[in-house]
């Protein structure tokens, strides 16, 4: 149960961080039109195709005591980053980045451009337009982004294994825990955890699809 609690905490932190940093990136991708945009788009989508071990490996190298991130962290906090909860958050943020950004981009792009024009003509600058028009109209996208990055982080295995190791209460997440138990032939215990994870993942996806199918919405469509 400790592992499950740890996974939940990790997933929640990652989802929150991703919403904060995902929004400006998504805004840039949805509304700006510069020549190098495809580079940023590819970079954001990279974790989708990269094996988690590759991402985890580079994250580990960067966080190590001789890596740039590791050095910076030691200078700031006096201890290393690898095999800590913070390190895990950092790697997971990278790993789940596209799961937050892409739903946000899609929903920002879905907002009628004329509404943005209307807002501008009525005297609102771009930050006011974002807060009062884009964001409220992208609410399903925001929910999707949060839920997907939460679920994706909850289920990650490769990255955690590389960066986090297997420290009980610090970095042993639920997927690692299941793996451990299978290795030590505790099938009953493994099954119990796996079922919980399955149930959570399924309900989370139900939320995503329900929100996007507009089964219920905060306001009537159109």
């Amino acid at each position, binding site marked *: 149960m400790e592992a499950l609690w740890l996974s939940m905490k990790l997933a929640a932190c990652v989802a929150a961080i991703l919403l904060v940093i995902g929004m400006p990136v998504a805004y840039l991708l949805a509304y700006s039109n510069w020549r190098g945009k495809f580079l940023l788009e590819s970079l954001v989508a990279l974790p989708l195709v990269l094996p988690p071990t590759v991402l985890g490996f580079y994250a580990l190298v960067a966080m190590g005591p001789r890596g740039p991130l590791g050095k910076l962290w030691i200078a700031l906090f006096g201890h290393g980053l690898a095999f800590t909860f913070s390190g895990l958050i950092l790697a997971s943020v990278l790993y789940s980045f596209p799961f937050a950004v892409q739903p946000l981009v899609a929903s920002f792009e879905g907002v*009628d451009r004329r509404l943005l024009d209307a*807002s501008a003509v009525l005297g609102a600058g771009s930050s006011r337009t974002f807060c009062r028009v884009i964001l409220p109209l992208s609410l399903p996208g925001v929910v999707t982004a949060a839920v997907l990055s939460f679920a994706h982080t909850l289920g990650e295995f490769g990255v955690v294994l590389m960066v986090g190791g297997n420290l009980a209460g610090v970095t042993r997440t639920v997927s690692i825990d299941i793996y451990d138990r299978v290795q030590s032939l505790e099938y009953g215990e493994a099954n119990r955890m796996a079922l919980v994870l399955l149930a959570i993942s399924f309900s989370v996806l139900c939320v995503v699809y329900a929100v996007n199918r507009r089964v219920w919405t905060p306001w009537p469509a159109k």
Partner: protein
Amino acid sequence: MAGEVKATILTARIRKERRGAGASSFILDVSIEASPGITILFGPSGAGKSTLLDSVAGLARPDEGRIVAGSDVLFDSGRGIDVPAPKRRTAYVFQTLALFPHLSAEENVSYGLMDLQEEERRKRVEAILKAFRVEKLRRQRPGEISGGEKQRIALARSLVTEPRVLLLDEPLTGLDAELKAAIVDDLRAWNAAKGIPILYVTHSREEVDALGERVIALDNGRVVSAGAPMDVLDAPRRKKLAQAAGFENILSATVLDLREADGVMRVRLGESACEIEVPLGYAAAGNRVQVAVRAGDILLATERPHGLSARNVMDGRIISLEQRGTMVIARVDCEVIFVVHVTPGAVRALELTAGRRVWLVLKTHSCHLVE
């Protein structure tokens, strides 16, 4: 912020090139002036009307030009001035209205007043909702409001900010004539006190007739004529404009003789033997002219009519009948082909079928000379 507004005149000289794929580039190159009151921008779709409005509002950036409202320069490519849209104090009602779907009518209307004190904002919103007769709908969201009332709310939202220029992009399409007239009356009443220039884009002939103060006709990115509606529209100088104004029949003709005393002339249509009488125009015998006739202005009879004041009766045969909505489009061969609009009821009552012999009746003044 001006509580009292001096008579503002809007002048805009705009050149903007829009490059499409291949040869489909388009150049808007116009110079217009709008004094207080309604100025209609009229022309077929693709003439550049919306680009012109977007440029005035600051939503599109001209390649070159100068836009001035009263004494304020909004854009000047020569001096590098480009006031951003939120600071232009132009109001813009879009064709789609663009009401914020997640805000109530009242919140939509007060959207542009966020910098005002609560008290002042409430007072202004109250007044404008009353002026446009939508105070009962304040709590409703746009999705719960009917077409005409949405248009009223969109107008209220724009006007409550006390703009110095109002831009209307076909804001009343889809409304019936009565409702349109009522909204236009409210708009005029509002503007009687404010006296700002209103640019009103439409491609509907009826709206021009209903609003008509001054018309600027645009075609293919250029101003083709400007003046009173009668001058601009009833003697369409460009064929495309004539089509936009609802002239389905545009026929080339040769002038036979002028009868100045009667104010008419006789022309022969195309290469046919078909002769009709049309209003006198700037032409001499032997000149080629274009005659435009609306399909709805032609009468169709199944027997040779007589005892009519109409001067032009031609016989021919129906080539085809095509139902479109509640209207039937008949093509009639009188050596030249005419398009005639009839009702489904008339088709049944007269037993019209393809191949049937019919007579077309045309009043002289339903024939318009083009160029």
